[in-house]
């Protein structure tokens, strides 16, 4: 799409093309993404990306070579101050790209603070469908004086900066494209109420980006309508700000960067969702009835969203009464205590928390394991140890959760990688909790839970709820005699009764007990019980979701990853293949206990990289418990632990570096 030099004001359809009035042009030999792959140099800039070959300044441009355009493949970073109301503008931007059919992802890199500290929102558009975090920022929107200089200095050459004019950023770098925008001057006429200007001014950068990138204004306005809903006054104010931004850019900011969008058809039928909401929908569809929780970032929106959905869809139509109880508990100990009390009494119960809450739940989950009481625990992992980085992501609870609590304890963990799997595996977790009569953990993380993801429409569950082995009159007759922990089916799982079901009772106790639940300190009773629990965990291997495997018959290298790391792996494998000719096979773990498949996967490869977002190679450590020594020797680690979501480049750089050692 070329802009005509004759046009004084390019028409909408040309928006996004490099403007002939651009006085300064950055000259790339080609798309920098197509630079030959190079090893990371420890002395180089953190991105490890080469600078473009040169800069030709003040060169009037008469044509727009297609090679200089980068279409539907860039990342935008909006730097603002926490609490300044930029979220609406950011989501409108994200949604308008999505509505244009372009694959997108949105990540909020925010501080543990209500207002005043720096926050960044990153939007990635990728025609390839890559939705992991992109390491480099292509377009910076600099609204925060505090971080603007640092943000600009961190950019790669060739990036573009839309900035608040008084910040005077232009002189910091000569290898960037700068677009100064006088936000305060523009917002005043469209927003007479001075108190609202701080919020409304953010919409101006959406207008500017619409013009610069070629995002259709009709889609922006539609997204704005969806975002603000019925708030007519707010819609009107923001629409005015959007337009003023567009018009300003059109009249004053000649297009000088190569990034632009073009309508695609890659988001048809998809939804945009934060995976915490997906967990909530999964829990509701799984028939959860008792939910107890204690607020903690990044898990709070699981239960908050669940409350909204349950009030809408789980009120009995005839009586107007609730088919659920949701309680904000006094702490995480009480949250899990209530969930176990409810699970013992026959309800489908859950709690949601993050690392510090998991630590507090340690004693109770051991009780749940030993007394065999179902409950679902959602762990939206954040960066630890201790308080750590409450608003940053990690996969740091894997090892401790697998064996959470004192004594010989093992827990079932399900590990979703996407919004779809957060929905599906949450439902699975309720079935497994009742099937195995034990606490089941769903290990998501902040990146999944609090960021916006594209997803396929969730499918309605086609299987009935699995309420597990419950004692009923018929079973009682068949068994002849009943003991709560008698292993009559040789799968380690007994039949349980619940209070009020009319079946024989038992004494649920965390102290030593025999197969009938009676108090016992006998050596044989204790050992038999622990052995049966181990047998039950073995049975679980057959029931948990299987690993996802993508085999390349020509590859010597295997990659193992799990959870949100998946998105960086998908892209890193492409990078390795395209840039260094390295083919890889991939296994994505979805549950603990592991299946026997993992050993076979490792056997089929010379080296296997376990990629995870923690320092201590937690999953690799857990794997070694199940593997033969020869298999363990093949394992290598790629570890990423900055608090930011892992990116593909960090993975491919590290694998390549280790391959060349």
């Amino acid at each position, binding site marked *: 799409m070329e802009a005509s030099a004759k046009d004084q004001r390019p028409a909408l359809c040309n928006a996004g093309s490099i403007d002939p009035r651009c006085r300064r042009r950055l000259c790339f030999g080609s798309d920098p993404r197509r630079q030959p792959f190079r090893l990371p140099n420890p002395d180089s800039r953190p991105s490890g990306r080469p600078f473009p070959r040169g800069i030709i300044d003040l060169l009037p441009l008469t044509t727009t070579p297609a090679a200089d355009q980068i279409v539907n493949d860039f990342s935008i970073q909006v730097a603002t101050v926490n609490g300044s109301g930029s979220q609406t503008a950011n989501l409108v931007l994200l949604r308008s790209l999505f509505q244009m059919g372009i694959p997108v992802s949105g990540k909020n890199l925010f501080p543990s603070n209500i207002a005043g500290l720096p926050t960044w929102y990153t939007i990635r558009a990728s025609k390839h469908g890559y939705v992991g975090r992109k390491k480099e920022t292509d377009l910076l929107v600099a609204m925060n004086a505090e971080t603007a200089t640092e943000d600009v200095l961190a950019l790669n050459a060739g990036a573009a900066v839309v900035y608040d004019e008084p910040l005077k950023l232009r002189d910091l770098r000569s290898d960037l494209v700068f677009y100064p925008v006088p936000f305060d001057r523009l917002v005043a006429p469209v927003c007479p109420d001075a108190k609202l200007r701080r919020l409304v001014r953010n919409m101006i950068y959406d207008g500017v980006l619409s013009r610069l990138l070629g995002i259709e204004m009709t889609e922006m306005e539609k997204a704005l309508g969806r975002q603000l809903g019925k708030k007519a006054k707010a819609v009107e104010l923001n629409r005015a700000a959007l337009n003023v931004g567009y018009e300003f850019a059109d009249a004053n900011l000649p297009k000088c960067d190569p990034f632009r969008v073009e309508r695609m058809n890659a988001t048809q039928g998809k939804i945009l969702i934060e995976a915490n909401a997906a967990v909530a*929908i999964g829990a509701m569809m799984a028939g959860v009835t008792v939910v107890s929780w204690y607020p903690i970032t990044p898990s709070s929106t699981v239960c908050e969203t669940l409350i909204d959905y349950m009030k809408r869809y789980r009120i009995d139509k005839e009586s107007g009464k609730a*088919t659920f109880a949701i309680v904000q508990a006094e702490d995480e100990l009480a949250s899990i*205590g209530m969930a176990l009390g409810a699970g013992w009494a026959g309800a489908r119960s859950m709690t949601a928390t993050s690392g510090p809450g998991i630590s507090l739940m340690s004693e109770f989950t051991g009780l749940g394991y030993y007394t065999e009481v179902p409950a679902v625990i959602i762990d939206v992992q954040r960066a630890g140890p201790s308080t750590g980085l409450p608003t940053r992501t990690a996969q740091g609870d894997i090892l401790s959760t697998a064996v959470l609590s004192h004594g010989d304890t093992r827990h079932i963990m399900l590990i979703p990688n996407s919004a779809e799997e957060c929905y599906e595996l949450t439902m699975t977790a309720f079935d497994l909790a009742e099937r195995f009569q034990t606490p089941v953990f769903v290990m998501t993380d902040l990146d999944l839970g609090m960021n916006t993801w594209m997803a396929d429409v969730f499918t309605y569950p086609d299987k009935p709820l699995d309420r597990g082995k419950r004692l009923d009159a018929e079973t009682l007759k068949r068994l002849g005699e009943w003991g709560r922990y008698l292993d009559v089916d040789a799968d380690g799982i007994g039949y349980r009764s*619940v*209070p*009020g079901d009319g079946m024989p009772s038992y004494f649920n106790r965390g102290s030593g007990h025999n197969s009938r639940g009676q108090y016992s300190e006998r050596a044989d009773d204790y050992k038999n019980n622990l052995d049966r629990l181990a047998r039950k965990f073995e049975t679980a291997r057959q029931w948990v979701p299987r690993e996802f495997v993508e085999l390349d018959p020509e590859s010597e290298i295997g990659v193992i990853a799990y959870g949100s790391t998946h998105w960086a792996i998908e892209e890193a494998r492409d990078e390795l293949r395209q840039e260094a000719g390295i083919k890889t096979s991939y296994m994505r773990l979805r549950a603990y206990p592991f299946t026997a498949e993992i050993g076979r996967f490792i056997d089929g490869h010379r080296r296997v990289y376990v990629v995870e977002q923690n320092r201590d190679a937690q999953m690799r450590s857990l794997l070694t418990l199940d593997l033969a020594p020869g298999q363990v020797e093949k394992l290598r680690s790629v570890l990423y632990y900055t608090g930011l979501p892992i990116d593909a480049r960090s993975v491919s750089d590290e694998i390549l570096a280790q391959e060349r050692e």
Partner: protein
Amino acid sequence: MATETPALPAPGKKINRINLAVQAYRGGKSTLCAGCGHNAISERIVEAYFEMGVDPHRVIKLSGIGCSSKSPAYFFGVSHAFNAVHGRMPAVATGAVLANKHLLPIGVSGDGDTGAIGVGHFVHLMRRNVPIIYIVENNGCYGLTKGQMSPTADLGSRLKNGVVNDLPPIDLCALAIQLGATFVARSFSGDKKQLASLLKAAIAHRGTVLLDVISPCVTFNDHEGSTKSYAYVKDHDDPLGEMTFVPFFDDIVVDYEPGTTQEVKMHDGSRVYLKKIEEGYNPRDKVAALSLLDHTARKGEFATGLIYVEPDRGCFTDLLNLVDTPLSMLPEEALRPSREALDEIMERLR
């Protein structure tokens, strides 16, 4: 063992209004020390539930950790039971009641379980007015770990090994009243009549019952110098008055003189009559109740009897507006929203 159903009573044996003999309410043999106050409390629990005709299949027994928390094994053998972790029984009880609001929970805890490790959960149980009878078997010491001081040990009380308590005690009754418990009473394990009456009144109540029962530890805390010894409590027990409880299913035949008795009508229609010692004591007056506790404590005495009651306040399950069917018994159709509901949710996210 807890799996048998109650046997039909032998002909001629005393049965209650649901045709059960007292045997149906008994449990396993106690493993607590001979003479332990807790055993006497278990006896009273058996009697009260038998006499009130409570269906033991609807009862759930809950406890934490400690000597007191072992005692649910010694009554109601046919009932379900949950022996939780130390101090955290209130959370388990709350969850169980939410799962099935038709259950009748009785929780047994101790002074360490309630006043120390579990005080945070105790506080919120009271505040929520969860329907439960919560009994603290209060002996002022940690028996199962061999006699350390607990948070209800009185200032100046002395352990067998000579250690003197130099911290003031927590008054669990005062705490419960302030926090919102709707039935607060204190008794003594050795006072058969009063304890039985209080338990029956507690059964008739709907909401949180705190029953603080002073129960001397015969092994570690029943010696001279202990304010929770049998001898001390017998001398310093300050009963609010003679208490009579009349269940809703009995004809009211008692005849108290007006002006000297206080009648309290319970949730289920039962009545409690307090024959006054202190003129004008009204167990529905929160300030008077707290004042009484403070005055008696200053004199080194224990006020016993029904200290505070608020029979009409809605309990936690009322507040949550739960459907009549227990949540644990709801069929799949009530639990899983329709395909149309999911479609609607998805449509909003497009």
